[in-house]
Every structure is written in structure tokens, then in C-alpha cells.
């Protein structure tokens, strides 16, 4: 069975940040020195070849781009300056747009105007909700402080309304993400290569998904261990924050000022530190451009970092203003926080760079399934 060459794929891929890929002459140095490339899942050279040849179907069935953590060693050692690391990064963008059935991902990746328009629209909806919708439901802004001298947050942002909204948003994001992951599963496992994976293997290997989500052991296989650490801080901080805000909001958003060693505050401080540390490394690296992995920044990279930073800063401000009894500051930060957080979650998680939080661990899981696949 021959695979059809799609010459027009070239033009499509170029919109995702891929420049001149004919520079590669297939010496294989990149693959030889990559600690993550393994028998049966060889990259980057093989994937570059698929791109050069316009083998669309093979490319979309590839799990390998997600197994790369972009340490940049391949690009450093490339004798032709073909930037294999960046080609893999661009492939991840392309694949994100392929998994997404709505077509929005492709729009966002290929046009910053579209992405900005959506972000700003969501932000505007949030601001309007706080200034017009919530007051009409009887919630209000108050200068009165609590007995401890804190700000009455729940009077302005009622916990059950916000919580309901959080759950709704989580549901939308989750259903989008899950449907995309199913499409990913379909392309990688179901449709491709006449193979079959038993249900038992699916169940037996499921732990890998959880383990890889929590620890990213593959990232730690890269020769440079520093970025595993900063990435892990960022990831764990984000996950903790996401869980306490979306799932346990009533426990987290309290008007009482709890003692500093209370788990609520300790978790919050840890998560804030994790986020800030990870963000600092990423932003500083991209500005400094000393490491090859930070050399090329797509607009989607900057938008993501900017939104996450703004979310973290406004979150910190809410906390400071609230415990110090500064109502105006608290409320303004709260609105700003939500105005950044909502579009970030709604756009970045299912459609853009943040989606890798799901695709990467799932890719490791799918890779494992492929290893146990039998011919159909």
C-alpha cells in the first residue's frame, strides 16, 4: 500500500513556523544524539523526512513530536543548521491544529489577529459580567471589611456563582480536549498501520499516563536537567492552582484570613512560587536567546507566557489587597484576574500551546500501546 505524497502540505506547514526544511540532508546526527529517540520511535530525522516529502497521513499518525521536549541538542549538533528541534516544535503546533475538530486551533496558530480577537472578546465578556450582570443579580461592591480586616470578596464575587461558572468552563474545556484526544487516538492508534491493541493493554498501561502527567520523566531524560525542574515547578504550581480554583473553590476563596501555616495558604504560596519560577526561566530564556530552544519564539509562545504571567500577578494582587483590607484594589485585581484567566483556559488549553498538558502524557501512553500492538 503506497502512501500518497501531498506536495501542498509544504505550504500548510509553513504557516506553523516551519521555514526551510530542505536544509536537512539526513545524516541522522540529531536522531543519534537524542536521548529520547528510541527503536521504533525514531526522531527527529524521520519526521523531518515526512515533512520534506509531504507525507500528510504518516505525519498525522506520528506520536514522536510529543515525545520531544526540545532540549535543542539536535539543533546545536546539526551540521546543516536545519534546526530539527524547531521543526519538531512546529510539528506540535501543526498536530494540535489537526487534532482540533473545530478548526479554531488552526485559525489561532496561523493568524495572531484571530487569536487576539478571541482573547479580547472573552476578556470583555468577563468584565461586562462583573460590572453589569452580577450587580443586577444583587451582588455588590462594598467597602465594609470583615471582622479580621479583610475584604468581603464573596459579596462581590459570590462563591457559588463563580464556582458554577468554573465548573461549566471546565466542562467545556474538558469536552473539547477529550474529543481532540479521541481524534489523536484515532489517528495514532485506530486508523493507522493495521494494528490492534487489546483492552487489557489499555488498562494495564494507564498508570503511565498519570505518572507522566505528574512527573514528566521523559523530560528528565534530556541531558540538560535544569529545565525539567523549572518545568515541573510551573506544571505543579499550575495544576494545584487549577484544582483548588476549579474543584475546591469554596475551600480556597475564603473571606477569613487563615493562619499562614494553614494548608490553604501554604498550597497557594507554593503554587505561586512554582508558577513564577517556571515563568521567569521561560521568559528570561526567550529574551536572552542563549539556548537554542529559546531562539525561535512563535507568537503563540509569547501570548501564552504573557497570559500566564498576568494571571499569576493579578492572583497575587488579589491576595495582598484582600488580607490588607483594600477593597478597591481587590475587586479590580479580581476582575483583571478573571479577564485573563478565562480566555487563557478557554483558548490555550483546548486550541493552543497549553494543550500539550494533555497531548504529551497521552502520547507517552499511546506510544506504550503501540509497543504492544499486534497486527490486525
Amino acid at each position: 500500500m503506497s502512501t500518497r505524497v501531498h506536495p501542498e502540505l509544504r505550504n500548510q506547514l509553513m504557516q506553523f513556523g516551519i521555514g526551510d526544511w530542505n536544509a536537512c540532508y539526513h545524516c541522522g546526527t540529531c536522531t543519534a544524539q537524542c536521548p529520547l529517540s528510541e527503536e521504533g520511535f525514531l526522531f527527529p530525522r524521520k519526521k523531518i523526512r515526512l515533512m520534506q516529502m509531504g507525507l500528510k497521513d504518516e505525519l498525522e499518525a506520528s506520536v514522536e513530536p510529543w515525545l520531544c521536549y526540545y532540549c535543542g541538542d539536535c539543533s546545536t549538533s546539526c551540521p546543516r543548521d536545519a534546526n530539527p528541534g524547531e521543526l519538531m516544535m512546529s510539528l506540535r503546533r501543526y498536530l494540535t491544529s489537526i487534532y482540533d475538530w473545530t478548526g479554531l486551533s488552526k485559525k489561532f496558530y496561523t493568524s495572531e489577529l484571530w487569536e487576539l480577537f478571541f482573547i479580547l472578546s472573552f476578556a470583555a465578556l468577563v468584565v461586562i459580567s462583573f460590572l453589569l450582570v452580577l450587580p443586577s443579580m444583587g451582588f455588590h461592591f462594598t467597602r465594609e471589611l470583615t471582622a479580621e480586616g479583610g475584604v468581603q470578596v464573596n459579596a462581590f464575587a459570590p462563591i457559588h456563582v463563580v464556582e458554577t461558572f468554573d465548573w461549566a468552563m471546565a466542562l467545556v474545556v474538558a469536552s473539547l480536549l477529550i474529543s481532540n484526544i479521541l481524534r489523536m487516538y484515532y489517528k495514532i492508534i485506530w486508523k493507522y498501520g493495521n494494528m490492534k491493541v487489546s483492552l487489557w493493554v489499555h488498562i494495564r498501561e494507564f498508570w503511565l499516563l498519570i505518572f507522566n502527567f505528574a512527573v514528566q520523566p521523559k523530560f528528565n531524560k534530556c541531558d540538560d536537567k535544569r529545565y525539567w525542574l523549572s518545568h515541573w515547578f510551573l506544571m505543579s504550581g499550575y495544576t494545584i492552582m487549577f484544582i483548588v480554583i476549579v474543584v475546591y473553590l469554596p475551600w480556597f476563596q475564603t473571606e477569613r484570613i487563615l493562619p499562614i501555616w494553614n494548608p490553604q495558604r501554604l498550597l497557594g504560596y507554593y503554587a505561586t512560587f512554582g508558577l513564577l519560577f517556571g515563568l521567569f526561566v521561560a521568559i528570561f530564556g526567550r529574551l536572552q536567546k542563549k539556548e537554542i530552544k529559546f531562539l525561535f519564539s512563535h507568537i503563540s509562545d509569547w501570548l501564552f507566557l504573557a497570559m500566564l504571567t498576568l494571571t499569576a500577578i493579578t492572583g497575587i494582587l488579589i491576595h495582598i489587597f484582600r488580607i490588607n483590607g483594600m477593597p478597591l484594589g481587590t475587586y479590580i485585581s479580581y476582575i483583571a484576574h478573571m479577564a485573563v484567566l478565562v480566555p487563557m483556559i478557554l483558548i490555550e488549553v483546548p486550541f493552543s500551546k497549553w494543550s500539550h498538558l494533555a497531548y504529551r502524557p497521552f502520547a507517552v501512553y499511546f506510544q506504550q500501546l503501540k509497543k504492544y500492538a499486534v497486527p490486525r
Partner: protein
Amino acid sequence: MEEPRIGVYVCWCGTNISKMVDVEAVTKEVGTLPGVVLSKNYKYMCSDPGQDLIIKDIKSHNLNRVIVAACSPRIHELTFRNACEKAGINPYLFEMANIREQDSWVHTDRTEATKKAIDLVIGAIRRVRYHEPLQKRSVNVDPATLIIGGGISGMTAALEIANAGKKVYLLERTDHLGGQVARFDLTFPHLSSARQMIRPMIQRVENHPMIIVYLNTELKEVSGYIGNFKARLVFNGAEQPEITFGNIIAAVGLKPFDPSVIAEYGYGKFPDVITSLEFEDKLRAGRILTKYGKEPRNVAIIHCVGSRNKQYHEYCSRVCCMVALKFVHEIRAALPDANIFEIYADMRAYGKGHEEFYAMTTHKQIIFLMYDQQKSLPLIREAYRDDDCNMLIEMNELLSGIDIEVPVDMVILMVNMEAHDNVKEVVRTIGVSLCGNQFFIEKHPKLDPVATTTGGVFIVGTCQGPKDIPDSVAQAKAAAARILATIAQGSVPVEVTTAVVNESFCCGCQTCISVCPYSAVSFDEAKKVSVVNEVLCKGCGTCGGCCPAGAITSKHFTDRQILSEIEGIMSMSY
């Protein structure tokens, strides 16, 4: 025979010989042998003081034989022969013993190497005793030149010689000058026009007072030898008056390979599978259109068609890779949105500016697909009904290992360059030989790539092997320079150490005639004996070795000389 008075000179060659051979011992050992008048050694015999030593000794000791034990005769035999001549003795009374390449360089035991050196010198001493003085000879050179082939190589050589005021007969089989280059549109790597290059050249050749152009003319017969050839030409079936000339340049070129023998490509079956030359025709006409008059959306260029494949031709045609890249530039300029596929076996960009040209072409949004000649060739077949292309190329892509199908509307076959059908007649007529690939064989592949083993016959351009325009032109100018040098001399030296037939021993079996690689032996029907043409003979000795009657002797390589040398080498029993 006069009594031999031999001078032996052993060279140190710096440390090259002296570190492995005890030069003093050799000098001493051979100094007492019969006929040896003196035996000396010196650090560098080939240096001016070394040569002066020989010259002085010949005069003062009245030497009549000289031996130098040093390096290979290939390097310095001429040096020492000239020294002998200066001192007033015949240069053929000199003999060289090679104690460097055959001894010091290849051995590790100093004692054994020294013994071997002594053996070799004794062999030379025994041999030189029987050397006879030989006289140098030369023949006059007719200043006209015959050039066979009116392509860019032949025309270049013709202009070069004619501009020096010497007459040129330029023979062309077809009805026009220009050869293959006249079919090209642009040239690589500078993308300059072939037409603008070849047209003025044709004009200059046709109008040159010293060049006589014969179109539609074939070479019937060539006779004679260096400096004095005669030829009969046939124009449109009618024989022309005989012409005479002193030198010949073969510039017959090569022709494009016919790909219809390769079943996979369907050439002749699919109208839009065309050869590179046919695509050049389209480019020169200014429109790239398919058979049905549409602009192709997908164009594939298949490399190595008939090349580097034992079934067709094993050699590489050298220029096709760059021509294919040149096509990319021309297609990209004419059809900016077309998809271009380079289906190649290896990309060869060996020449000046070629790698840069390749690098530049990779930015032209083309898809490179590699195939393995040894495994299978790409297969061209009709597209399916619902495909939006004319044909599909099925192939195993080597760098990915994946079986792919490539949608195409036009396929360009980069055809190999191969010998003309009548090349065997041509070489027989002018007396040169062909290699296994039917390319003309040069005298020396590195040191004499324009001459042949037949004196006065030179080869230029692609008939010597596939090459690009600059290489062809350079070779043509080199051959012209060689010929002009002999014309300027007025005469050329001919081989001295030729074969001689002893007519009374010759039985007329003609074995010698069948083995002579230079066609130098003929048969005298009246006397029923073989006759050696001393101008054509190169003294290779083949005839002498074959002669069942022992009737042929090679001068300077007589049985007596050779056997004495062997006896000498074997005489010491250690």
C-alpha cells in the same frame, strides 16, 4: 664490439636509499666486476653536481657505458641520458638500476636490501655491455588539422588552431554545427543562455578563412601517421578529393540515451514522459505545456535514467544532476505554483559553483525524493480516475523507507550520455581504442588526458567521457595547444626503440599484425613477410613476444640484453 668501459654511479637519494641500502658496500662490491672502470656514489646523482660528475668521468676515463643505480627510470632516465649525450656518448649506452622503488622503499632488512641492490646493479652491468647506439629520428608535420565533430569541443579546437593561422578541416556528420549544446536553453550553474554562447561561435567558425567546414560529411578512411595523414571523406554519398593533414582531433561527442528500453518509465507510452533534451526543446520554445496544452501542476524530474545501473550504463553522466537543478530554476520561474519533485539516486555537485547551485536550488520549494537504483526504479503509471493528476509515480523512498505514490502531470527523464552507434567505425578509422563504456581511451588518464596512444591523434570533449561545457572547452584548447606546438616545431620525434623484422626468419604467419595495438605492422605481399612502420611503432614489444619464428627484435630490448640482465641478477649466490 668495442671493449666496454663501464662507469657505475650509486645514488643515496638523500636518505631514501642510503638508510636501507649500504651504498658504500654496493659501490665497492661492483667496482671489481669485469668491464667496470670506476664505481662511485653520491648523495644526489640527479643534481647538477651529480650529473657533472658523470660527464667529467666519461671524458676523463673514456667511458663508453654508464649505469646509475638510483630511482625509477620513469623519473630520471631522461636526465642521465641527456648527461651522456652532453659528454659525447650515445644516450642509449646508458642503463638505470632501480634501487629505490624496487628496493629501499619496499624492504625493511638492511642487509638483504643491500644484497638486492648489488644484484640489480650487476644485472645492469651485464645488460649495458650489449647496448647499441641508437639514432633519434623525427618526421615532418603537415600544418593542417582534421577535426571530427562540430560540437562545442570541435569548434573550440578549430578556432584555437585556425586563429594561430593554421588550416583546419572541420568534419560534421549532421547538417549543422553546435552539437548537443545547440539544443540547450540555459546552462548551469550561472543560468546563462547556451544559444548566446554557441551562435556567435558557429558564426566565427563558418566565416573563418582558415577553417573548412564539411557538413553532412562522413569519414571514409584515414591512412598515414603522425604529421602525415591522408583522409577520404564522403559527402552525401559522393567521395570527396583526398585531404592531407598532420594531426587529428576526435570530438565526436556522445548522444542522449534512449529511455524507451526502461519499461518502468513508460517512455513512448505516456506522452508527458519526456527526456531532458525534449524538455530543453520546450524551454527553448518558451512554453512548458503538457501534451494536452495545459500547464503542469506537478512536475517530476527523474535522475540517473540509464546511468549508474549495470543493466544500462554503469557510469555516471556527470552533468545531469546539475541540469536537473537548472530545470528547477526554469520551471519555478515559468510556473511559480507548480509542485516540483526531484527524484534522484544521489545528488552529485562536484564542480566549481555546483554545491552552491544545489544549496540555492533547495530553497526553490522543491521536494527531493531519493530512490535506490540497486533495489527498484520508480514506476510510472496512469492516475486513478478521481485523481487530479495525469500520472502517479510509485517508488520506495530511500531516506524514509516508505513506499509512496507521487502525483505528476509531467515527468522529465534525465537521460544518460552514451556513445554514438557508429563509434566503433570511427575508432577503427583513426586507430584509437575504446574502453568498456565505449569512451575513447586517453594516453594517460591523469598525465595525458587529451592524447591517445596513436601519435598525432587527440581526443576532446565527451567522446573521452561525459563532461560539462567548461571541461570540454578546456580539453579542446589543450589539444589545440599540443598540436600547435608540433606544427611550430615543424617535426616530431618518433620512437627509437622500435621493432625490426628479420625477413629471412619471418614465416609470414601475420601473428604480429593481429596483436599490434598501434596498427604498425603490415604485410608485404610480394615478399610474404611482415613490415614494421617505424613511425607508428611504439616499441611495446608485443609482436616480438608473439613471433613464433623469433624473427622480430625490439631495439634496446633484444633477447641478448634481457637474458644478460637476468643472468646478472641471478649470478650472485648468497
